[in-house]
């Protein structure tokens, strides 16, 4: 093949992707469906730990995946999908909490009594457990926002301190120091409540 033929051949070449436009679209949809199946429950638990309402948590998860759908072209550039998705849902949760009013403890008691596993407890014991958990969560809410966020995320088994740092956009040492402060504050709050009783 001469040089001119090679030039013309390259010039007239039609890329394969232009001939089959549905292929990348379908690949993105498949990748998104896989993300939904893999991480929806994790995102739900992260959202529920902060919102403490099943419907709100599910809405947050759906909104997170809608955001992913909007930016599906960037899916290939993301290194850690899990942390990326948790960060998205965490930002949504924070936005919602900022807009919503402070939840009364009675709402938490009712919601916890509904969602907590029975584990062979009687109705009275379940109610008492729900009340106790709601009281603990009320103490968590009294913590400063930075410490509270680290404490809530650290309760998840699957999140390391590096990943918590990536979700919150801080350094790992900040995560450690905030966690330490949060635990101390939490112990103080619980002891104070116990002494009042």
């Amino acid at each position, binding site marked *: *093949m001469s040089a*001119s*033929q090679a030039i*013309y*051949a390259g*010039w*007239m070449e*039609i890329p394969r992707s*232009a*001939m089959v*436009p*549905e292929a990348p*679209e379908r690949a993105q949809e498949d990748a*998104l*469906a896989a993300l*939904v*199946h893999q991480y*929806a*429950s994790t995102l*739900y*638990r992260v959202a*529920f*730990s902060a919102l*403490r309402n*099943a419907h709100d948590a*599910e809405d947050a*998860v*759906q909104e997170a*995946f*809608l955001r992913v*759908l*909007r930016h599906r072209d960037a899916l290939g550039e993301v290194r850690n999908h899990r942390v990326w998705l948790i960060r998205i849902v965490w930002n949504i949760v924070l936005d919602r909490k900022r807009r919503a009013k402070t939840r009364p403890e009675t709402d938490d008691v009712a919601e916890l009594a509904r*969602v*907590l596993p029975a584990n062979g407890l009687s109705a009275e014991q379940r109610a008492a457990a729900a009340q*106790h*958990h709601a009281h*603990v*969560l009320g*103490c*968590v809410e009294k913590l400063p926002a930075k410490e509270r966020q*680290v*404490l*809530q995320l*650290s*309760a*998840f*088994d699957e*999140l*390391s*301190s590096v990943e*918590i740092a990536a979700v919150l956009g801080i350094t790992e040492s900040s995560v*450690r120091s905030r*966690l*330490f402060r949060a*635990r*101390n504050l*939490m*112990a103080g709050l*619980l*002891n104070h409540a116990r002494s009042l009783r």
Partner: protein
Amino acid sequence: MISNPHDSFTQGAVPGSAEETLLLIASLPAPNGLEERVEAVLRSAPRGGQVLPWPKTFRPASFHIDRPWLRVAAAAAIAFVVVGGGWGVYSRVERQQAAKVIVVPARPAATGGFSNAGAIRTPQTLNGPVLAQPADASSAANRPADATGKRSIKKKRRPAPAAKARNSAAATVAPGK
């Protein structure tokens, strides 16, 4: 080294009950059918702009040319059509000509003709009513002036009221005489 904060969670100052609560909340199972609901929402969500595919009969794949000389010929034909069309348009378009000037006959020079000597023509207006001058006005004008230079204007004396009454009484008596 990646450390898990959960490992030190149990060793911290948080009392066991609080730790238990947080772990319990974090481990709550997701509701059934969550994935399906999320997928349904994603399916019904409006997508961004989408490029419509070509119909199968007009797909670029059907015009794919394998032989190189045919490609060259096709490229030459396209170039010929483009250049020929451009030349056709160019040759038909008239070039812009200079603007036509309407020649106006020159007026005779003002210096060579008669001048109006500064006279200004005024249009004729309608003749209005003319006030007739009384005849005495001319005689009064001819009368000589006083020593002071002022003209004496004699006022016509009006008769006194007593004389007026007398005259009227005489007029009434007279027919009866």
